[in-house]
Every structure is written in C-alpha cells, then in structure tokens.
C-alpha cells in the first residue's frame, strides 16, 4: 500500500522545512526558458512541471563547485592552518529527477574507497533526496540505456509520482519516512508506469569498444566539433574531477577545491610539456573510458545516469549520446 499527499500539502510541508532552517533546493526557473536546481528562498519558487529536467545537476549540493579545504595564516616563517568547522545544515533536495538521485550512490564509491572524503560525506549525510518520477523525456534522455528508468528509485529517500491533484509518496528509507510521517495519507492509488525513452545503445558494447579500440580514428573523427569547454562535465551528475588550488597571498588565504574536467588541455599536461591526451579526441575518449570501463571495473557501476545534460548543454549539440550511439557504426 502506498501513500498520497496533496500538491498544496506538499508545498506547505516544504514551507515548514524552510521555516525549520533546513536548506531546501529544487528546480527553479532562473530565467525564461531555463530551469536550474537552486536553493529555494520560498517554497513557491519551485517549478514542478512543464520542463524535462534542470540544465544543471543537483550534485553541487553534496559536492560544491568551490569548496574550502583549509585556511592558512603565515606569521614570519610559522604557518597556522584551520579547517572549516561550519555545521552543514540538514538539506532536502526536492523534486529531483531520478537520473540526479541515482548519481549519489554512484559517487559514494569514489569518495569512500580506500579513504573517506569527509567533506563529501558530511554533506551527503545531511541530505535527504526526494525524487519526482519523470513523465516526459526529450531526445537527449537515455536513462534506459544505462539500466535506469523514469521511476528508478536508486539514491532516493522518497519517490513522488504525479497523480494530478496529489502526489503518490513512496518512502524508501528511514530518512524519507521521517519527513513524511503523519503528513501523507494511506491510499490505494498508484501512478501508471511511464516507459521513458527506448534504449539507444548497449553499455557492454561501449566498454568493449573503448577497451579494445583505444587508438581507433573514431575518437578523433567523432569529436572534431568538440570545443573542449567542459560544459558536459560541469553539468553531469556523476563527473567529479576536481582541482586543488590556493587563493590568497603570502600572508593568508585558503586552499580550495574546484570542479575540473578531463576536457581541458591542461588537465594532464606534464611539466615537461608532454601531454598524454593532446587533443579532444583523446579527452572525450577518456570521458567514455572513465564512465563505461574504469568505473564499472573498479566500483561495479557505470558512471553515467543517462540524464542527457552533456548534450543539452553542449554548444555543439554533441554529448555522450552522440558519441556512444556512433560507436555502433564505427
């Protein structure tokens, strides 16, 4: 048996969460035609329908694009370091797409294998994910090609399904149940299953190709249009490469980590001038290799949720899907 909550009731609930001092984030129309995940100043800002998915990914609430590692202060030849002791407030990510929610357990692997990244974990643990099942897709979507679906529950604490005037509420974890306890009513109604896009490629085939055809001219030919801007990676729910830099002067400042991307030429440039990945062909190949071969081999999961943001944000209209569907004819 499942539960329902009225749409007005959910809005009230979101207001309550904000009033309690929780950070609540969800899809917000930031300018005409552009919906982005953002922190809500008020529960009314959230956009529930009328778009396929936000143009960014929700990962930045757990893995910010710019994050303090420590501050330093120099006096004479002594240095003092301090860590960011700030409490991370409880945060609720609301109306998240299943392809964003699924990225969290996938990212958990890399941030916890071998040694734990506490900066990531403290945000992750403070986060509750309330996903909203998709009811539409566009030509960039390909969740069904990577083992997910418009109703995929992976990474969500609660799944919502649109029933018209109400949402069906499926609480999946204790964290999720705690948020909706006493707020949702028992119900017999369940949402029909929306099938989403037809599968577009076979990830096993992609792995075989990138492993076996590392030097294929395909990588160069298929990426001639790539500008190396990194928009695909920055808006990807699973891309997690970062850089560590100092900001400050010789007296005081901070050490921070910033998002980075394997699409940038400097990414692998050695001090000797040698660059193992000297062109966009090898850089895009690396993105495919990491997502469909390295990560599955190491952590048992594809590092891609099929959200299609790489294509939606690409100034050349390319992205993963173009590259991966092309493999069949390579």
């Amino acid at each position: 048996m499942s539960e329902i909550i009225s749409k007005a009731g959910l809005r009230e609930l979101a207001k309550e969460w904000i009033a309690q001092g929780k950070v609540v984030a969800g899809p917000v129309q930031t300018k005409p035609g552009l919906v982005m995940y953002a922190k809500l100043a008020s529960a009314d800002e959230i956009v529930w329908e009328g778009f396929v998915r936000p143009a960014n990914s929700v990962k930045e609430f757990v893995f910010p694009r710019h994050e303090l590692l420590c501050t330093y202060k120099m006096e004479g030849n002594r240095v003092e370091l301090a860590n960011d002791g700030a409490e991370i407030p409880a945060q609720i990510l609301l109306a998240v797409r299943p392809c964003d929610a699924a990225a969290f357990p996938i990212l958990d692997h890399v941030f916890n294998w071998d040694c734990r990244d506490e900066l990531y974990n403290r945000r992750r643990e403070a986060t509750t994910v309330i996903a909203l099942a998709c009811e539409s897709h566009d030509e960039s979507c390909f969740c069904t090609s990577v083992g997910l679906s418009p109703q995929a529950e992976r990474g969500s604490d609660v799944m919502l399904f649109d029933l018209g005037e109400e949402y069906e509420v499926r609480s999946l974890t204790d964290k999720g149940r705690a948020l909706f306890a006493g707020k949702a009513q028992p119900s017999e109604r369940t949402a029909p299953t929306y099938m989403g896009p037809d599968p577009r490629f076979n990830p096993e085939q992609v792995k075989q190709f990138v492993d076996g055809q590392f030097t294929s001219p395909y990588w160069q030919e298929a990426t001639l249009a790539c500008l190396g801007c990194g928009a695909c990676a920055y808006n990807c729910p699973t891309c997690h490469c970062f850089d560590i830099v100092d900001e400050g002067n010789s007296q005081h400042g901070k050490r921070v980590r910033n998002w980075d991307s394997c699409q940038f030429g400097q990414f692998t440039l050695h001090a000797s001038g040698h660059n193992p990945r000297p062109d966009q062909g090898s850089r895009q190949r690396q993105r495919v290799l990491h997502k469909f071969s390295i990560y599955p081999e190491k952590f048992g999961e594809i590092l891609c949720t099929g959200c299609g943001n790489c294509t939606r944000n690409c100034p050349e209209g390319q992205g993963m899907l173009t590259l991966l569907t092309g493999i069949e004819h390579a």
Partner: protein
Amino acid sequence: MPDIYTPDLMEVVNVRKQTPDVKSVRIQFQNKARASQFDFRVGQFGIFSAFGSGESTFNICSSSNWKDSLEFCFRKVGRVTEALWRVEEGDTIGFRGPYGNGYPVEKWEGKNLIFLGGGIAMPPIRCAVWYALENREKYGNITVVYGARTVADLVYVDELAEWAKRDRVRVIQCVDPGGQTSDWKGEVGFVPTVFERAKVAAENSVALVIGPPIMIKNTLPVLEKLGMGPDSIYTSLENRMKCGVGKCGRCNAGPVYVCKEGPVFTMEQLQKLPQDY
C-alpha cells in the same frame, strides 16, 4: 575537522641548490607525535605545498631508513616550484603523504640492481640506491647509469661519487653530446647508448628506468637484448596528479589510478595499459 586534504606542517631544515634550476629540500614534521608515526616506502611520493601558491607532486627522495627528516628534489618549472624555490631554512611548507605503492624492495632481494636515470629522474632513484646500500647484504651488484643534458644539470653529484666508492657498486655518469666540459671525466652520450657500451651483466637483475619518455623508449630494447623480461623492468609514471588519494580523477592511465596503484609499474603491467601516460 581535519580531512585528507589538509597537509602536515613541515619545517625546512636544509636547502641545497643542485643545479641552476634544481633544488633539494629537507623537511621535518613540526608535530613531533606525527613524526614518530610516520613511515613510508622508497618509491612513494608526496604532495608538497607552498602556501599561497599551491601543491605539487614530488617523489620522496630520502631513504625510508632516515627517520628524522624527509627530502624532496625538484626542478623549477612553474607556479608552485617557483614558490618552493624561494623557501629557506626555518620556513614552513605543507606535506601530504606518503602516497602510491613504492618499489617492491622485498621482491628485489637477492637480485642485482640496475638503475637508469635521465635528468630530474635522479631523486626517485637516489632513495632506492641509499636503501639498497643500507641493506647491502640483501642485494647483489648495483649499477647506476645517470645522464643529464650538461655537466651543470647533474644532481647529487657528491653522492654519486660516494656510491662509486662502495663495494659492488658501479656508477656511470654521462652527459648529452655537447654537454661536456673540458675536465669532464664521465661518458658522453645518451643513457641508452652509454648503458649498452657499459656491457653490464644482466643475469638475475631488476632494472629501474626513470626519465623522459624518449629515454625510456630507447632504453627498453637495450635491456631486452641483455635478456631482461618486461616483468623485471620497473618505471615510475609521472601522470599529473592533484589529490594523490584516488578521488580527483586526474591521474588515470586507462583503468588504473596511478596515484593509488602506481606510480611504480613493471613494463609488463604497462604493456597491458593503453598509451595514456
């Protein structure tokens, strides 16, 4: 909350200018408790930082038997190394590590050791040579072939002379043609050629080859001719790194995280990896 990216604070106890653009720096933990816990394997690396300029990856080039301090040696090539160039005794710098796998020195026991290095590759070889000399009974003959562009570019020259005096150690120094001075007593030529001319017996040996890709490429056929298999030839990769702990995605070479599974690989392992280093 201390995290995996916050460095230890280190006091600079010694700085030596090795060449016009290479310095070696010896450092000590300011936190004495940390110093007594610290241990590493030769061949591992660290991430060193000049606060305000950032972090850089260098091999730890002291022997793991030297408990009171650590040493690294770097060439001035960019932002961080320019800043480190300016540090003096008494200054404070940052260190994270040790990272990476290091050399399989236990597996090398009972073998003759051949070290082939070019340019700034001396630091990662130096720690292994000292380690072997300090455990002399465990290793056979030691051969070091070390080359630089010019005489002025050779690093740790005093130590090369010191090793050459030891029992069962042969040290061959060379400079590129044109890089010699009138009083140069070493060889003239590139490392692979000089090594071939030296006719080193390669039975029961392991080789550690570190240097620019072109040097490694030209050295491998010579080692093969001597009968050495790809499982007995080692190198240390220098894929660009940031985190050192398998998170930031910078160092991948095919399926491996070089910072975790490397940087030390046998040629046999490298042959299975795609050309991504």
